[in-house]
């Protein structure tokens, strides 16, 4: 690990003042960043520890929830209001990592975790445009069973590893951001970038900008939401494919629907096409299959991951079927 200085932020103003320095990084639970620093893939000069900032989960007047970015993944998953009003979010969090990691990891850090592409991690032995722009991508023709089927580019085929973000994308979460001279919000769906020709730039955050909170809008729809993760082993593995969804059926037809996919793209993938295809349609397996097909029309398989297209289609149909069963 390359030497660095460490400072514990006392408040948001202190954090963004320190975090504006070149080669500074915000430190949450460290479950991803410390590992990447040990591999010398991340090389910050300054770590600004933001785990002492807000970890409050507060009710908003409009019925939504405001979640401090330093909230641990465990604290969010077990919170009563999240379990009862946004069950997909609780389910997504407990489907990820291990209990020890969820205890350490913060919400802000979960959003900014980096891909687990093995070629990205292999500093000594592999080419990676995300590590070194212009270096090439060994995953493109390598072992790419875990890689992207949607939104990839010739530069990068890696996937975003978060489960929590898939649920947040489905729930229309807003990300609260702070910088020395600005305060703004961004929809979670607009936080992460597709790789394009700059896979090293993963978000639309300005340099030094700090995630201070996540806001969940009030949504009665979210009460009937769930998350299903398909992986190689029953626990403690990254997703091959995952689906977060919420569905409201009225008189047998889809009144409202939200769907997001994980394990398929460089960002949590909101299935806007499938949602549009389903509105007003009969809440039947045939409609769900047609909507999934429409979403996945843009999918492009690599050498080893063609199975993900069919897996994503079936998982979407199964999850929507489960929610429709509840809604009837």
């Amino acid at each position: 690990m390359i030497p660095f200085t460490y400072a514990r932020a006392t408040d948001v103003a202190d954090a963004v003042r320190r975090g504006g320095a070149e080669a500074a990084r915000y430190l949450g639970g460290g479950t991803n960043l410390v590992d990447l620093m040990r591999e010398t893939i991340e090389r910050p000069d300054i770590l600004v520890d933001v785990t002492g900032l807000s970890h409050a989960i507060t009710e908003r007047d409009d019925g939504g929830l405001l979640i401090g970015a330093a909230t641990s993944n465990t604290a969010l998953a077990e919170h009563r209001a999240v379990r009862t009003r946004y069950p997909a979010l609780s389910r997504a969090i407990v489907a990820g990592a291990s209990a020890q990691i969820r205890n350490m990891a913060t919400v802000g850090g979960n959003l900014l975790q980096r891909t687990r592409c093995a070629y990205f991690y292999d500093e000594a032995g592999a080419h990676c445009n995300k590590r070194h722009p212009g270096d090439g991508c060994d995953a493109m023709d390598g072992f790419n069973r875990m890689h992207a089927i949607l939104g990839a580019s010739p530069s990068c085929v890696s996937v975003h590893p978060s489960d929590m973000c898939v649920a947040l994308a489905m729930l229309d979460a807003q990300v609260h951001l702070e910088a020395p001279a600005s305060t703004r919000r961004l929809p979670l769906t607009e936080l992460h970038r597709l790789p394009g020709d700059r896979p090293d730039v993963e978000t639309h955050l300005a340099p030094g900008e700090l995630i201070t909170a996540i806001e969940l809008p009030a949504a009665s729809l979210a009460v009937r939401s769930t998350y299903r993760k398909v992986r190689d082993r029953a626990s403690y593995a990254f997703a091959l494919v995952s689906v977060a969804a919420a569905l409201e059926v009225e008189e047998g037809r889809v009144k409202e629907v939200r769907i997001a996919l994980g394990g398929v793209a460089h960002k949590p993938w909101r299935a806007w096409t499938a949602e549009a295809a389903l509105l007003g349609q009969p809440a039947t397996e045939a409609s769900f299959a047609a909507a999934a097909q429409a979403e996945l029309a843009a999918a492009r398989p690599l050498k080893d991951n063609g199975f993900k297209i069919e897996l994503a289609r079936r998982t979407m149909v199964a999850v929507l079927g489960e929610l429709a069963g509840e809604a009837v």
Partner: protein
Amino acid sequence: MTISVNGVEAMLPSDPRVSLLDLLREQLGLSGTKKGCDQGACGACTVLVDGERILSCLALAVQYDGRSVTTIEGLGTAECPHPLQSAFIAHDGFQCGYCTPGQICSAMGMIEEVRRGTPSHVTSDITAEVIPFSRDEVRERMSGNLCRCGAHNGIVDAIATLLPEAAE
């Protein structure tokens, strides 16, 4: 800058690169906590911080200023083992023993999580106030602790002795 380890105050390292695991093993001589993968994949380094289980290999020691750490040495001794340590012996919850301190610290944290209602991936009703213990719950909740000897059945049996409701 101090940290409490098993009730004893210790100085934090001046180099922020030192992990909590290396502080415990190399500077405080507490070699009960094991270094397995050193990258957050195996759970051998699990310790309790203020009662919560964490991975000490991914924890920078400086981040834990003022916190209270419990390691396997703080749970029991050879003369006076913790009931869970005795249960691991009684149920063959290990073979080589390398993962065992992490397994035991992890189980201690896990039991508290279930008692306060933290749901898991296999909890069928995540809105329930009280989450029932079961062997499936124990297995899922202990998935962050690998045992390459394959003693998982004995590990679950040992943990179940502290949880009569999960015994069946």
